[in-house]
């Protein structure tokens, strides 16, 4: 939609004048100059050739008619094509979208032809003035400001001034104070971090028994004897919390079956059961589920930022931005042979936070295994 307001004069030479580089917007590089009538009244307004304008009018009219027809088609299609399943929605999407696109395009093209072929070409010049006001105005404003200030009494009444400032400070704080209950937690904010240190694995069932590990999705408890093919992997959630997203955000596990000789020293053997190891599935980087597992290398990979953990060696970090291993959950079996949690994680799961501290070192310092 660039306009050419200044055609290039072509001198009657043996050599055509060549134009190089980025031409001025819309300046035609090849077209011969078009005869243009200067509007007698306004300099810089070049009326188009009447015959060409008449021809253009027909094109514009055609475009506008297309828009009319397409808009009608949209309405008709809206009534004709119903939605409901994925196929009919796909059809409806095209049946509505295509006429809408055509209608808008018709209008757009029509107006462009109108502006370019029917309306004059312009090369109007307007003066620009410096943005700054002239000195008299500035002086006047300055005087008025000072007079107004004086009239208001602010400069010579410090008590007024200071108490106004005093008043506005707490008033400005009110909106922030009002946001305090955004946490819905009914607890001192200093307790937030304590919440992050526990998961539901530390809880018991209503009967006072440890929570079973159940398969995510089906909710089936896992009999250790059945989970016996080395290299096997399961995504596991706590019994009774299958649909509790807050619980899952910290408690979801990745359960892997190893041959005993594959397990390295980083893994706490006391927390495993018959080569079955449970790690937190929540990546210690920013909390995506580390859901990918490579059987041959025992690598757990987080698909978000590619932090890679060695599942055989306590899920220590071997690549990527995560700084800490995936915490291991102590597991065992109940009297029926189902896998259960023997307690909560020893360290907070998921992304780091300011109050976390070196929780792993803390556990180690008390003789534990993180």
């Amino acid at each position, binding site marked *: 939609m660039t306009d050419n*307001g*200044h055609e*290039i004069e072509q001198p009657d*030479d043996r*050599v055509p004048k*060549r*134009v190089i*580089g980025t*031409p*001025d*917007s819309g300046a035609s590089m090849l077209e011969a100059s078009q005869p243009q009538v200067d509007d007698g009244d306004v300099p810089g307004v070049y009326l188009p050739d009447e015959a060409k304008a008449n021809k253009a009018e027909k094109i514009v009219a055609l475009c506008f008619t297309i828009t009319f027809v397409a808009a009608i088609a949209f309405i008709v299609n*809206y009534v004709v*094509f119903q*939605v409901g*399943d*994925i196929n009919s929605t796909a059809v*409806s*999407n*095209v049946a509505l*979208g295509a006429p*809408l*696109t055509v209608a*808008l*395009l018709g209008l*757009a093209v*029509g*107006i*462009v032809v*109108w502006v370019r072929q029917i309306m004059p070409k312009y090369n*109007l*010049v307007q003066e*620009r003035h410096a*943005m700054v006001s002239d000195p008299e105005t500035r002086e006047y404003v300055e005087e008025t400001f000072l007079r107004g200030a004086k009239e208001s009494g602010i400069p010579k009444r410090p008590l007024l001034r200071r108490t106004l400032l005093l008043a506005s400070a707490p008033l400005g704080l009110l909106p922030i104070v009002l946001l305090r209950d955004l946490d*819905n*937690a009914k607890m001192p904010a200093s307790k937030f*971090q304590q*919440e992050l240190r526990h998961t539901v694995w530390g809880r018991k069932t209503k009967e006072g028994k440890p929570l079973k590990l159940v398969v995510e999705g089906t909710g089936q408890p896992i009999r250790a004897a059945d989970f016996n093919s080395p290299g096997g992997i399961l995504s596991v959630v706590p019994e009774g919390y299958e649909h509790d997203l*807050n619980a*899952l*955000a910290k408690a*979801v596990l990745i359960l892997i079956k190893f041959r005993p000789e594959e397990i390295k020293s980083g893994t706490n053997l006391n927390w495993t059961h018959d080569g079955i190891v449970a790690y937190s599935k929540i990546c210690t*980087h*920013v*909390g995506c*589920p580390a*859901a*990918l597992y490579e059987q041959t290398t025992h690598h757990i990979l987080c*698909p*978000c*930022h*590619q932090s890679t953990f060695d599942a055989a060696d306590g899920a220590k970090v071997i690549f990527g*931005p*995560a*700084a800490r291993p995936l915490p291991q959950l102590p597991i065992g079996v109940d009297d029926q042979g189902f896998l259960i949690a023997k307690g909560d994680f020893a360290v907070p799961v998921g992304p*780091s*936070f*300011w109050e*976390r*501290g070196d929780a792993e*070192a803390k556990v180690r310092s008390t003789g534990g295994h993180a």
Partner: protein
Amino acid sequence: MTVPKAIAGPSNFIDERIGAGNFMKRNLRKVFPDHWSFLLGEIALYSFIILLLTGTFLTFWFKPGMEHVIYNGPFDPLKGVVMSEAYASALEISFEVRGGLLMRQMHHWSALLFVAGMMVHMLRVFFTGAYRKPRELNWLIGVGLLTLALAAGLTGYSLPDDLLSGAGLRITQGVAISLPLVGTYISFFLFGGEYPGEDVIARFYSLHILLIPGILLALISAHMVLMWVQKHTQMPGKGRNNHNVVGAPFYPAFMLKAGAYFMFTFAVVAGLATFFQINPIWAFGPYTPADISAGSQPDFYMGFLEGALRLMPSWEINLFGTAEAGTLPLSVIIPALVPMGIVMTGLALYPFLEQWITGDRREHHIADRPRNNPHRTSIGMAAITFYGVLWLLGANDELAANFHISLNMTTYIGRVMVFAGPVLAYMITYRICLGLQRSDAAVLSHGVESGVIKRLAHGEFIEVHTPPDEDIEAHMRGKESIPEIPAAEDADGIPPKGMRGPIGKLRAKMSQTYGGEKIPLDEGHGHGDEHPAIGEGDDDRSLTH
């Protein structure tokens, strides 16, 4: 011709009440200069209007709730699945409302176009120096708009509550909670307790449909008003100078052209939404923090943050050891804050830094050609490269899969390129700018090849050169040398006041490097009738001598 009654009546009514005539008199024929690059910002403007229209439509059905419902809609694969109200209503919009999917896809496409339009517009303004005095304020508003657009995108992206958007939300939370001192509080206040809670969708919803667009609308209006008051910059050219505007009048030409351009943008968005699927939420399933799909990618404008997160080595510090405080997850904090900080702060400060370095306090209304301020252009290209490397790395898993490179290798290369790339881009751009300046100088002093080969009396063949077109010459001669601050030492070897301390010396040095004329247009050559076109004067002169 007289004004028809239908228009004269209401006009009279309005004029008698608010004196609209005075405003019309001043503004109806306001002149707008023309250049294709001036249209980039309009893409963003029109996308915003489309966002408001389609977004309003979506609100009529969308339910921003996280209550669990069991899906019983027409999409069979999800029948009986437990999901949030938000996701269920997004599915309803997609499958059960006629035109719903179209509007949803238009909303998403125009959001991408909105941010993309702003970015290229901003680059145009940067590279042509159109942010210079008196337009610094509008530039700052622009930086604010870009930031808000990212916030609008982030909050909107999360609303459908599908597995993909949830992954984005999870990363947002992981970043928020990692912030020193305040992280835990921010996360608990934002999510109404522990992640994910049951509030965040509703809260993002009110931010996304009320607060952020409200501020956007206000800032966009201010942006337009300032542009109107200050008049648009123009490219250098024949008859154009710092004290005029040359172009087409607002009424009727510019007005109609703007309308047509709006329709074009609208048509492109509608066409994309019709023929190119975007964000098929039904394919991802409802969000659960326990699952993720591989190859999860954010929208393009968040890609650079994603790339920065992927690139970072695994650094974490515990300032006070095992004490319950002082954990600094640098592998999150640095990539989340530093690149964004560098880009946004750099953008906001650039006009003022440039003024400080050049000492240039004049008004500028003629746009620079990028080559004519080589250091600025090189800094811009370095920034683009920095951003671009991070952006590419945000899709390093796709790069690794499609080009069969080791994933780890893409990360290692990225870690080097994020530093080396900008330096290389700077040096290369600087050389290209000088080369282009030289080529301009050559055109002005020697003319351009005419395509006419001439045989001289002694048998030599030469190509005749002809002076460039007037418009082109004026365009090239629009070049201005970049001012330098006076830092020369006086007769006693004392630099001027303010240039004496270490900062003053650095400033003087930078000014010297940044400013000045690198390649004068008429360097060492005559022009004018020394190199005449064929047909006048002596034919024998040409560059081939």
